[in-house]
């Protein structure tokens, strides 16, 4: 375990906990800077996200910041989607996968950069 691992893991955790698209931080580090194979990087990212998200969820749940009804509706649908996604992976070559990730990041970056602060934020 080197220092970069710790720092990036920590940063990823902060970003994930704050809902800043933290799931992408570790993935960016792994695939862009650490030179890990794309699929392995994605796998590591998903595995790390689980305990990280679990901690965040526990803290938010204690503070009643989670709308559980919506979770109950969306999570099962998402699980169906993730199974579909896992099936799709078999047909997507690794080079294309990193391009898709790049596209998703560009889209996320742009949408966040130009998103306006709404009054709901002040709640």
């Amino acid at each position, binding site marked *: 375990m080197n220092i970069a691992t710790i720092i990036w*893991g920590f940063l990823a955790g902060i970003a994930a906990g704050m809902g800043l698209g933290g799931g992408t931080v570790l993935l960016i580090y792994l695939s862009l800077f650490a030179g890990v194979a794309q699929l392995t990087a994605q796998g590591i990212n998903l595995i790390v996200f689980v305990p990280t998200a679990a901690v965040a969820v526990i803290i938010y749940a204690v503070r009643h*910041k989670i709308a559980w009804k919506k979770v109950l509706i969306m999570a099962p649908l998402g699980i169906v989607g993730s199974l*579909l996604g896992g099936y799709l*992976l078999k047909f997507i070559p690794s080079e294309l996968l990193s391009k898709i990730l790049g596209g998703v990041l560009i889209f996320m970056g742009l949408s966040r950069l130009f998103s306006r602060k709404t009054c709901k934020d002040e709640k």
Partner: protein
Amino acid sequence: MFNLGTQFKIKPKLFLLVVICFIVLLFSSCKSAEKSIVGSWKCGGDGVLYDQYNILTFSEDGTGVSETIIPENQDSEELKIVNDIEYKIQDDTLYIDFISEDGSVNSTEQTFEIDNDTLTLNSKKVHNAKYERIKHNKPYPANNTDVSSVLFFVFIHILFWVIFLKKILTAFFGILVGIINGTVGAGGGLVAVPLLKSSGLSQKESHSTAIAVLLPISLMSAVSYIYAGHVTLADALPYVIPSVIGATVGTILLYKIPTHLLKKIFALFMLYAGVRLFLR
């Protein structure tokens, strides 16, 4: 925009309007079906000319059959003359070609009028030939291709979409969250957060709820990645502890500091990484 689940309400006036349209269209489509010439029609058999009668059958494709039947009487046995016909309708004129067995064609032209179950034919030779629709022996379904039937069909579809669109969209985006998260290994929040926000949650609530949504989804994806052999638990282990500590800090920070600027900085980082990954 679309809402999640229980917040769906029908506006009473809109609902009433929809119901009225529905009834009107239903009524008009039924009526227009009755006006169609498609079906079987019987003329005669009322004692004139030895109870001779004629049955005209029109199918939807412009063909049909004409049967002229003279029942058994003191002069002869039952006589049945069957001709294939081809017909064409222009405005209120009906053109019928009677095709004999030997192939000769006898073309006729007559004006026609349909009033419920009565078809009245008028030609130069025959005036006011009344045909009654044979209901119990309707060999062809009513004509469905006229405008009001199509409208009715379209209307039902629109009604369906108006009622279920929100739910369909929600389901679609819910599944999309999983697909993106599963194939890219991240980024489910990209869809989940706006979806939650549009359902009436605040920005920060949307973020915290999105994490709860993504947790089981990511767990499922992670298991499938391990199962497929793309990654092992040992690969991920070094990152878990720092990340969990980071999450604790981040979670506390979210409701303490304004995230606006941080978001912009992070967005730039994403853009940079995205472009590099895209060009690789």
